């Protein structure tokens, strides 16, 4: 069993808000971020600054409102997005790198070598501004393992502090998750980002954490694309007495209840 002390990266304001029909105003984003900060969430992924001025304004206010949590700006792998994140004061600049050949070929319409080249340019721009870099491997669960290893080595060489392993379409089983995360060398902090398409995001996050990951991504009420992300409340229930995230389950439950009307403005969306 690895270290019991683990950390939560909350992505309610980024991946959670990408859930169809869920949308927050600047004020609502700040309210949610303040609650997460008070709870003891160590990192808050506050959104995608490249979305525009409104999102940047939310970032600036969140940065001022939060006292302990580090604020992450999520970026596609391009310099313009990264420049926006740096501009609005994010503590951590996260770069999302499509890792599977499916995404590289079909979505980016590029090649593995071009991905590596662009990633290097992005990392240089982030280091020039003396910001912390974290790298996410999108669709890592469907990627060729040799390329995943190359991306991990590249991330470490480029000075990334954390590597996010994403099961983007939520197809991993716990045993596969355990076997995969165990294979990642321990010279970089690992973060697991599990989707709930098969109803196993909590179990997979637990397996990732038990296999060496330091961070788990989660959202309030488990909101997110399709069937959602790892539900923070459920993760805390499942790991009570086993893993320590520095977050009280009772406090999470009452704060989450307070935020329910902001997250689900349309009551029909929640059942």
């Amino acid at each position, binding site marked *: 069993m690895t270290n019991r002390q683990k950390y939560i990266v909350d992505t309610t304001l980024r991946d959670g808000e990408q859930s169809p*029909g869920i949308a927050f105003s600047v004020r609502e984003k700040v309210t949610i971020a303040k609650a997460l900060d008070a709870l003891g969430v160590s990192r808050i992924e506050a959104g995608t600054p490249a*979305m525009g001025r409104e999102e940047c304004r939310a970032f600036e206010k969140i940065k001022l409102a939060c006292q302990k949590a580090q604020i992450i700006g999520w970026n596609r792998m391009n310099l313009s997005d990264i420049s926006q994140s740096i501009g609005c004061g994010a503590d951590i600049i996260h770069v999302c790198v499509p890792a599977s050949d499916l995404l590289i070929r079909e*979505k980016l319409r590029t090649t593995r070598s071009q991905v590596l080249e662009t990633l290097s340019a992005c990392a240089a721009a982030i280091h020039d501004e003396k910001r912390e870099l974290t790298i996410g491997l999108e669709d890592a669960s469907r990627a060729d393992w040799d390329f995943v290893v190359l991306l991990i080595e590249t991330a470490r060489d480029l000075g990334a502090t954390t590597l996010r392993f994403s099961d983007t379409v939520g*197809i991993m089983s716990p045993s596969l998750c355990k076997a995969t995360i165990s294979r990642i060398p321990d010279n970089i902090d690992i973060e697991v980002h599990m989707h709930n398409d098969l109803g196993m995001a909590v179990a997979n996050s637990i397996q990732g954490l038990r296999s060496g990951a330091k961070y788990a991504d989660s959202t309030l009420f488990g909101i997110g694309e*399709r069937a959602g992300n790892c539900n923070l409340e459920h993760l805390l229930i499942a790991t009570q007495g086993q893993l320590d995230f520095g977050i009280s389950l009772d406090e999470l439950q009452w704060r989450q209840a307070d935020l329910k009307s902001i997250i689900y403005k349309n009551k029909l969306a929640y059942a």
Partner: protein
Amino acid sequence: MVTIIDRTLTTFNTSGLTDRDLNHFCDLLFTCGVTKIELTPELVDRLSFPASAASLKQWLEGRNFFLTQILSGPLTSDRPGMKEPKALWKLEPNELVEKNIPVSKLNSCHHQKVRITGLEDLMTRDYSEVFKALLNSDIDTLDLCPGNQQHCATAIALEWLLAGGQSISCGFANHHHFPPLEEVLMGLKLNQPDLFTGDLSVLSELRDLYEKLTGQPVGKMKAIIGTDIFKVESGIHVDGVLKNPHTYEPFNPQTVGNQREIVLGKHSGRQSLLYKLNEPELSESTAHIILKQIKSRCTQLGRNLSDRELRTLASEVQNDKPTEIYC
């Protein structure tokens, strides 16, 4: 083949069920891959059986029973020259004895047909060792029905089957503490297709019928059966899905009787707008104004815009009129 037991009909009050709905519900469960359906004795006379319900009830002696399918001889189908077997139902008593005891005490268990319950914390323990101990016990029939109080029952159920377990008990949707049937079936289909023969395209119909029978709505985001799980809003995902749906879908929506839909909201981009309006010639500045209005309205309403609302908004922007959408 593994045995998939469905316990849904033991989890809610079935007194108001019509015979037709009950038979249809069972039919759909068998179609999607269930091997045995657990039922209470009260439901015997509601099923379409030629034998008298009274004698069947007597035979069951008040115990729950299993409904299973048997294949009869080939019958002539509609297509000339083709013959297909017809499935018939049969009853058998549920002889499984439920045990919620530590795995270490299993060997002292004198029953040969056992259903293990509990084990809800297995994901935070070395579950493969627990499964080994279970599989090495001298019990003839070992069914697992892990509790879902820690939101890991699907994972435990799937790992049990992948480890060599031969029988699992589940329940449809998530208004109980059994592993959600639809998640276990899809997990099995994706991980061990050789062990799975069901047709999951009936799951949407099963969900609708379940909601009608129980009066309990299934969450729109519920894994596998939620109505909204294939709605795509964010620009990044729409871009991927329009190029190749496989990029951001774990399986084809039609596999579960659903369909994908591009919807407009706060995270939509120009590409989604052009796709929805089907107006490739829309100017960049007009698209920008429409998108801005969409974002503002959706943030206010907390939902996506309908196609009708979108058309109204677009036409008003194009005619330079102020727009209003009411909740």
